[in-house]
């Protein structure tokens, strides 16, 4: 556990560098986290995924895995890899201010 400065704000992060308090998240922070991961700018499609991840995590208490996202957020697996290259499950969770999806354990 520690804190880091993102988009001018002091943010709580866990040892993997994921935000540990989703309430501290804001769209500005998402944009900053995305830039750090080499995604710039965030497009409408990205937001479609991020909005779903935020909603789903608020409901279920954890970040959705890629399969859950592609089934419910209106993006295909192929698009997920274009939007969030290499690790779409991990990256979409990170940018959405959530911890790693449990599918990664």
């Amino acid at each position, binding site marked *: 556990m520690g804190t880091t400065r993102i988009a001018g704000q002091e943010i709580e992060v866990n040892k993997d560098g994921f935000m540990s308090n989703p309430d501290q998240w804001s769209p500005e922070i998402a944009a900053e986290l995305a830039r750090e991961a080499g995604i710039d700018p965030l497009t409408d499609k990205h937001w479609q995924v991020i909005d779903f991840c935020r909603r789903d995590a608020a409901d279920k208490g954890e970040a959705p895995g*890629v*399969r*859950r996202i592609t089934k419910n957020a209106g993006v295909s*697996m192929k698009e997920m*890899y274009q939007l969030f290259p290499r*690790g779409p499950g991990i990256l979409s969770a990170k940018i959405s201010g959530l911890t790693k999806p449990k*599918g*990664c354990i």
Partner: protein
Amino acid sequence: MKKLLILGAGTAGTMMAAKMRRNLDRDDWEITVVDQDDRHIYQPGLLFIPFSIYRTRDVIKPRSRYIPRGVDFITSEIDVIEPDRNRVRLSGGVELEYDFLVIATGSRIVPEETEGLTEEGWQETAFDFYTLDGAARLEGALEAWEGGRLVLNVVEMPIKCPIAPIEFVCLADWYLTEKGVRDKTEILYATPLEGAFTKPRASAMLGDILDKKNIKVEGLYSAGSVDGANGVLKSWDEREISYDLLVTIPTHMGSETIERSDMGDELSFVPTNKNTLQADGFENIFVLGDATDLPSSKAGSVAHFQGEVLEENLLRAIMGRPLVNEFDGHANCFIETGFGKAVLIDFNYDVEPLPGKYPVPGVGPLSLLGESEMNHWGKMAFRWIYWNMLLKGAEIPGVESRMSMAGKWS
């Protein structure tokens, strides 16, 4: 008469039937177990079939032999669970009512989920070893192997026994060395994980073992499709891996019964409380073993540890008492590393595998997170323990359901 119904007579369901028959009065409680067939497969043994260490007859016994006296066993496909009516419908139209339901329907591989995988080349140059048939056919392919590129691919997580892919490549290295064709073979392990395993210290340790054996690891690799005609595996981010022999661990899903009953998540695993094992939203339904959506490993040892918690909670639920939050995600696995050696790991939701001695702290005889011949014999002895102790719901001396930190050093 009250009714306890158990769906599935695999490791989890069979063990639970034995435990509950001992606990519940025969005059008050009827226990029924349903499974689609009478063939119990010792799943950890499937790994050894491709290398001719076990034959198929070594891993199959009748399920009915392990169902305890005083428990009804029905062989039938299960059509649908109707939780609002406390009822299960079997495929033949028979309806079974219950007071309490245990779902232990396991998980299965679904190779059809990967585009092209079951088309050209399937079971010619591409095989699974998670089914008896697949493991037996792969044995034939390895016997005929003269060299080339062997690729082991995990399509996506979760899979049963997350260490099986590592064991497979290690045993392949040993088998091909004995056969004299290791120097003509390139072995590659392509995984959606970042490295060899899910937990950092074990991943580093196992990564070293693979490195010494000259087994290459391609991490963060999510397979999207297979071009069987040309022997090419393609990831979603368009990395191509060519192969002469593809050993796939396909997508895993829960039972089709769960899907038909609309009780599963996107992979048909049942949303379950990770500590009490109660199905989310249903007070009289519990879930055990691979059928759950828990972030614990899908493995027999995990079902065993969960079983002790579920025994307590089912009895509590029956008596109307509060459930105990006990399951800690404890898993315990032997990892066969070839040449007569194995590694043993012990971990849970929060604590990753650490070095030490097991089960007696400081003494062993088994070594945690270290390679030894004794661990290999432990793995071989496990088959006897499985049939004679685990399935009968017996306690295994020295092996506790909650993970212990004694004898480990961090």
